[in-house]
């Protein structure tokens, strides 16, 4: 965030605008716009280069040649690439993201439906991941080279290396089939799905808004397993990073000074050292949260969880480009949003960043 020096004299006015109090906002906005534009362009090109014919998704494999040609024209696919992109961006700027071929719904409606499903899962997953991951990492750092450290490493290694597909099915087999602790695939029992009015799209919130406690617990019993599974993966990462950040802090002189002063070990570790670790840790957590927010296709497949990952993947495989581009914009917005949030948290956590 250094001040911008004007490249030449004529640039001074612009530079002042950018470095003034409102400047950082302007700069952020313009960089966001450029990022989105680039994102759209790249996604658009990838979509058009894909050797998949989107018209088949719209009319099916058995449609007559005349209908195929008509729909191809309706979809604007006979226009030159740049014109297609221009038309698309123009529509987007007017708030129209188009309709999805696969769902016959406006893309924005689709995303308003699938994103909350992912948001709910990712948020719960990250919360569990942080609650368990940070203390685990701290423990591993404190007991470096001893059995708790090894245990955490092995636990983390499993989290990294076992395919989520297998782990998900095993989880269902053990906790759903055998132990009956949790409910099976789906966001609520299939029969209930009809009775929930999607206000926010978040099951846990909507059921409470409806005042239906039974349904709320039903939703909890459905989300807990996939959320724990996602948590396991972010936990493995968060714990490992916490461990290395902590090790770095624990070797600092202020820790030695604190020990000499006779502070309790608990206070030294959990307050002084962890307090300083929090800043880099926020970035780690934010990134892992953003990753989960993209949606995990495999988890969503096994748990019949109609989220963003499944939506984008399905759309991509059918070259349903309006849907893919809409989804991309959301993922982009999520990344930018989470980054801004972690910047904000930085300033709260680190007094130096406030200057």
């Amino acid at each position, binding site marked *: 965030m250094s001040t911008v020096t004007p490249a030449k004299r004529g640039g001074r006015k612009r530079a002042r605008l950018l470095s003034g109090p409102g400047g950082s906002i302007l700069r952020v906005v313009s960089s966001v716009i450029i990022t989105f534009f680039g994102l759209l362009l790249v996604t658009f090109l990838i979509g058009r280069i894909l050797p998949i014919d989107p018209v*088949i998704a719209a*009319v099916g494999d058995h*449609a*007559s040649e005349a209908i195929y040609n008509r729909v191809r024209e309706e979809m604007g696919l006979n226009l030159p690439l740049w014109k297609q992109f221009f038309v698309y961006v123009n529509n987007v700027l007017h708030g129209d993201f188009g309709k999805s071929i*696969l769902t016959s719904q406006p893309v924005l409606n689709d995303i308003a439906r699938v994103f909350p499903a992912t948001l709910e899962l990712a948020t719960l997953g990250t919360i569990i991941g942080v609650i368990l991951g940070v*203390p685990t990492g701290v423990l591993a750092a404190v007991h470096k080279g001893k059995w708790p450290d090894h245990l955490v490493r092995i636990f983390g290694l499993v989290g990294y290396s076992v395919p989520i597909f297998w782990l998900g099915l095993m989880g269902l087999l053990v906790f759903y089939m055998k132990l009956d602790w*949790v409910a*099976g695939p789906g966001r609520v029992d*299939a029969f209930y799905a009809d009775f929930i009015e999607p206000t926010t799209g978040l099951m846990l919130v909507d059921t409470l808004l409806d005042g239906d406690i039974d349904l709320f617990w039903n939703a909890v019993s459905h989300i807990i397993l996939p959320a724990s599974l996602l948590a396991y993966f972010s936990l493995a990462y968060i714990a490992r990073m916490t461990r290395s950040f902590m090790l770095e802090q624990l070797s600092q002189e202020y820790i030695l000074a604190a020990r000499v002063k006779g502070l309790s070990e608990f206070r030294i570790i959990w307050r002084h050292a962890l307090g300083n670790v929090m800043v880099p840790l926020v970035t780690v957590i934010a990134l892992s949260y953003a990753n989960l927010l993209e949606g995990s296709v495999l988890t969503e497949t096994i748990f019949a969880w109609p989220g963003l990952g499944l939506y984008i993947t399905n759309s991509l495989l059918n070259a349903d480009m309006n849907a893919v581009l809409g989804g991309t914009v959301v993922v982009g917005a999520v990344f930018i949003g989470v980054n801004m949030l972690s910047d904000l948290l930085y300033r709260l956590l680190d007094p130096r960043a406030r200057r």
Partner: protein
Amino acid sequence: MRKLIAGLILGTALASAPISAMAETPKNALVMAFSIDDIITLDPAEIFEFSGAEYSGNTYDRLIGYDIDDVSKIHGVVAESWDVSEDGKTYTFKIRDGIKFASGDALTAEDAAFSLRRVIKLDLSPAFILGQFGLTKDNVDTQITAPDDHTLVLKVDKPYAPTFVLYCLTAGVGSVVDKKEVMAHEKDGDMGHEWLKTNYAGSGPFELNKWTPNESLSLVANDNYWDGAPAMKRVIIRSVTEAASQQLLLQKGDIDIARNLEADQIASLKDNKDIKFQKKSKGTVWYLGLSQKNEYLSNPKVREALKYLVDYNGIADTILAGRGTIHQAFLPDGFLGASNDNPYKLDVAKAKELLKEAGYPDGFSVTMDTRNTTAITAMAQSLQATWSLAGINLEIIPGDGGQTLTKYRARQHDIYIGRWGADYQDPNTNASTFAWNPDNSDDAAAKPLAWRNSWDPKEMTAETEAAILERDTQKRIDMYKDLQKKVMDKGPFVVMFQETEIAGVRSNVQNFKLGPSFDDNKYRFVTKD
């Protein structure tokens, strides 16, 4: 920090507390796991997908239907009876009394006429099924009329075989929609299409409650259904794409029926007393399309050799494991005139001899575009193994469905392995794609499977056209038998299997009906103990 630890303990407690799930589905509701992500529309004039067809079959009444156990028996549904004029060009249907739409309005002949005309005017994917009778946007208002509330008249351009016309009317495009309701939602002259894509205007045993794409489809019973109200007051279909997840839900009793089980799941549920399997042969075949642009494959001896290089029994037993039976003619069993002759079996020596006669004693190399689903990939690998015995080096090019299909449609493949599902219940549906290709040029107006494989079936094209005009049913049957034999002998298609649909059903669920087409999978007779 203390709060953090408290949160940790609470979190762990929450995660491990036994939250018991509801184990059984309600007695008057049918809950099903079914991969319904192929549904892109709910308008019967547009529906052309498997699960979409099942939806329209359960929610709309069609003019006529057939016995799902004996397709040759055609019966009336909305049309009580019908007459065909002496010259074979006018069909007069008597519309049944007492059918009501969900809106409460009575169904009349005008609704039926409107529905058929609407199909032609909207001209969406399945419109050609009716378009075959010379119906166009310009003439449809005079060719399809309703002189009074109980009479529907359909005029066709040629004296077609009555079976051909009637079977086409049993398809989804023969669904009767509520004219008043649909037109009330018309926008820019679209005959209510945009609205009906996500809404409902029918008279069937079930009504649409809610469709959430890729997620769920729920129906409620029509208690005033003219042919008896269904016992199930609700049908809830949850989209579960993963077969293993479907298995767990079924085993646990959270669903009543699992629709997309694969060989592994079927094997592991075989001895489960709570679960039974229902099977039905479908109008879908698995086949290889051999591009005639490829110099090896254009040799008739090579084509014949390949037909002897399929491990039919092995694939049926281990890969399809009940989900398909050996079938080598292009008409699936159950269709009028279908041939059940399966002359080819795995015979490497014979194939080698044929290859030698063809001038390729040491084989050759060829590619196959292969959709990356479990069953198709496994079949391709089996073929790779048996072909190598005859010296043919098969390179499998894996791809997603959209990808392989795009290539196939552009005639850029050597070999395509795929499925072909019938569009309607008349034999012409497959004859007109496997045995008919009036123009083999790149910019042909029609691109049937024969075209995709660059094959000119010569006299068979005319024979296919003649078969739809043959009004003597027995003669018509003989014509199709002959066409199937010819395609089997000379054609660039290695038809291998006919698909069997298998549903895993909880043992307390009775009378779930599977028919030869997805349109015929019916929920209305289902009862639960």
